[in-house]
């Protein structure tokens, strides 16, 4: 048929007609157009600007600084020529990085899943907190339960509670159209203060033996996740890591192999077409938020059962101002909402957070107090550059065009 050969409508931007679509549509196009290169470029760009800041403000060589962060994160463990003591330290650092990666994969998936339905779940914090609360409550109760059952119960309860928490926002969105950004932020603060109330002095879940410390009871030994790499006393890597890997697989399967994922994606890309197709938009909003919240709630539960073992009011209110759930946003953005992307971005941010922590960064090279700010700086830059990924794509298109000329 003739209309095949006619050229597509002209577009001066060079990005194709898709660019004018919804944010999510743009995102999808960017994902396909840029492939792996665009997010890598985004990260490199963020690191370059961060390095510039290091150079200008402290006069330190950014490369040695990054090298120190790299080692602090334990990434040198991958090098076979690193041996002896250096290798054992690298292993310890790597374990810390992977513990954080575990959390960030889950909080990243929480943001990514909602994103796929066209929703911005900024309430990972609240969902994480309620998940952690449930896990610490169940984990510190039922002294003599079968260990496997106990862990399973605590983790599932955490995930369910996260799902419920996010489900509130999803329900409000589906029924009265309340914007999920507003409602999830509000739910974050509600979760924070519920936590403060529960573990505060005299609170219902406050420690039974130390009545002047605003902290929960400890998770009983049987409910702690087994450590499979490193020493449990030195906070080795717990099996929650595999739960996160499993979550990545589940995420991919839901989106690509289930009718649920089909509906969620259809609503995310084009709610009007989904509605026309007979898909309930409001049901999918609710389900997407609930599943998203389950990932975040699971993150909270895994952290409690894997290495934190207790929750204090300080932990809870500290989360309110940012924390792992917020880093999840950067992880999802940089990972472009794909399973593999989220895994890699979580590893990057996990490494960055570990490598710049006071404990891990060589103070000779860079003041660790400043270094953690560097992490936040790079995190911010990544989010900004991802938001401006069309600039990166445009630059790439230009370079491509210039080459043959």
């Amino acid at each position, binding site marked *: *048929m003739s209309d*095949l050969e006619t*050229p*597509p409508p*002209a577009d001066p931007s060079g990005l194709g007609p898709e660019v004018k679509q919804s944010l*999510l549509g743009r995102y*999808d196009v960017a994902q396909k157009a840029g492939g792996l290169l665009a997010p890598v470029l985004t990260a490199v760009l963020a690191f370059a600007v961060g390095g510039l800041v290091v150079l200008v403000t402290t006069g330190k060589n950014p490369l040695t600084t990054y090298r120190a962060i790299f080692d602090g994160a334990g990434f040198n463990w991958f090098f076979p020529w690193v041996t002896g003591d250096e290798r054992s330290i690298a292993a310890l650092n790597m374990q810390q990085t992977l513990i954080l990666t575990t959390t960030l994969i889950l909080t990243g998936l929480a943001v990514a899943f909602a994103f796929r339905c066209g929703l911005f779940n900024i309430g990972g914090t609240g969902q994480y907190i309620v998940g952690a609360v449930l896990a610490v409550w169940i984990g510190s109760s039922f002294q003599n339960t079968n260990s496997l059952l106990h862990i399973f119960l605590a983790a599932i309860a955490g995930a369910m509670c996260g799902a419920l928490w996010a489900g509130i926002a999803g329900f409000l969105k589906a029924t009265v159209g309340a914007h999920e950004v507003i409602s999830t932020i509000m739910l974050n603060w509600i979760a924070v203060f519920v936590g403060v109330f529960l573990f505060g002095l005299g609170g219902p879940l406050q420690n039974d033996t130390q009545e002047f410390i605003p902290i929960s009871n400890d998770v009983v030994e049987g409910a702690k996740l087994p450590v499979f790499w490193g020493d449990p006393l030195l906070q080795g890597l717990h099996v929650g890591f595999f739960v996160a890997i499993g979550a990545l697989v589940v995420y991919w399967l839901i989106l*690509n192999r289930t009718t649920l994922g089909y509906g969620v*994606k259809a609503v995310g890309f084009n709610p009007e077409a989904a*509605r026309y197709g007979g898909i309930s938009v409001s049901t999918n909003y609710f389900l997407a938020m609930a599943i998203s919240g389950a990932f975040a709630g699971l993150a909270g539960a895994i952290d409690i059962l894997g290495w934190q073992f207790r929750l204090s009011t300080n932990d809870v209110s500290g989360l309110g101002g940012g924390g792992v759930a917020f880093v999840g946003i950067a992880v999802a953005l940089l990972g472009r909402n794909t399973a593999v992307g989220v895994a890699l971005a979580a590893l990057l941010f996990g490494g960055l957070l570990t490598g710049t922590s006071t404990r891990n960064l060589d103070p000779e090279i860079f003041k660790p107090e400043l270094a953690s700010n560097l992490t936040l700086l790079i995190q911010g830059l990544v989010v900004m550059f991802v938001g401006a990924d069309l600039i990166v794509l445009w630059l790439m298109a230009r370079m491509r065009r210039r080459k043959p000329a």
Partner: protein
Amino acid sequence: MTDASRTVLEMRHITKRFPGIVANDDVSFDLREGEVHALLGENGAGKSTLMNILYGLYHPDEGEIEISGKPVRLGTPSAAIDAGVGMVHQHFMLIPVMTVAENIVLGEEPTHAGAFLDLGEANDRVREISERFSLAVDPKARIEDITVGQQQRVEILKALYRNADILVLDEPTAVLTPQEAKELFEIIQGLTAQGKSIIFISHKLNEVTEVADRITVLRRGKKVETLPAEGATEESLARLMVGREVLLRVEKGPANPTDLLLEVENLHVFDDRGIEKVRGLSLDIRAGEIVGLAGIDGNGQTELIDAMTGLRGVAAGTVTVAGDDVTTASAYGHFNAGLGHIPEDRQRRGLVLEFSIAENIALHDYRQAPDSRFGWLYPRRLIERGARLIKEYDVRGGGAQTRAGGLSGGNQQKVVLAREIDRNPRVLIAAQPTRGLDVGAIEFVHRRLIEERDEGRGVLLVSLELEEILSLSDRILVIYEGEIVGEFSPDASEEELGIAMTGGGRGQEAAA
């Protein structure tokens, strides 16, 4: 117009490349004083690109433009306006709450003491121009209160107010009723008689032969030919446009209507703003017939279709599909009751552009076997079905896993068509099924709709194109302000239908 006329515009060897395509390839175009020069071509043939170059929106990669013999560089629309070029876009650029005169003078307002708007002067100047060119409009009327045809005149006046000598009319009849189109052609004659030159962009063959002095045909970015309108036939132009023989008239046998399939009774529907758009409408469709619903845009067609397909609540009345009352059913329920729906906006509603062709084809059925079982999706089955339908419906431009958004409009529509027809519906509601498609794709869609009729489905064709209604329908209903105001046979004239569409002869039943 005589051959001795002065050439007012000369575009020579214009080439414009976009990444991956050459939108204009060595196109030359000229315009003489007082002539109507039509620019004809399918979607994507390069008409808009050429005109956007003339209007300063794009810069040509090669070639030059001369206006009245002087080479010009048109960097911006304001440069083009200064050079005497005026453009009337297909979608009007008017502010609804302001008056006609305010809209016309906007940006170049007459003032008192250099600062205060002189509205009296504005009204006088607008009245003066509108009288000089016999473009009757009331300068003090608000845009939202006047008809689309009058709004178009305001757009023309806007250009004339800025002293345009060259007027570009982009698909000007697309939004008009037949009567309004007639009036527009008279206006065009009046303008050319006073020395204005007009570029008339269109893909409708009949009006091009009617209104133009010369015709330039573009195909795939290249100029095919410039020929005098005299002696050109619709068939010859179609061949130039498409590059092969095209069947312009739809060939179909007589209808053979049998069982009642779709019954709409006394339907009342409100739009989002709470205005009653469908007011006690009844219609029925039998197996084996195409019923055309003619009407001017905004007379309740959209709300009627949405209500019939479960996308909008019904305030009163019933919708019955093959005996099942589906009045309160969901969209999914309607599909399962045997309704197929080709939506009027395939990009906004008919397709998820980011999904592959295969995924789009599964849009209604992905929850059922064999696409899925117990919530588990089988993408390979989707792809197999997609591949089969791509072949069957001759979708070009990609395979089953190609993004739907990457296809041309005609091929996107074929995907929608394939999905709706392959489900084997009993009634097919086709809303503007050929909007924005070019001649070749229109031919395909029309043929397919007739085949569906002949296979015993009921088809409701809702279209703003009277010609399409007349050539496809076995029975024509006219909708006006949410009611059916007349039923006509397909031999009715465009004039008869046009009168009914504008509310004239209301309640009067013509020969059925």
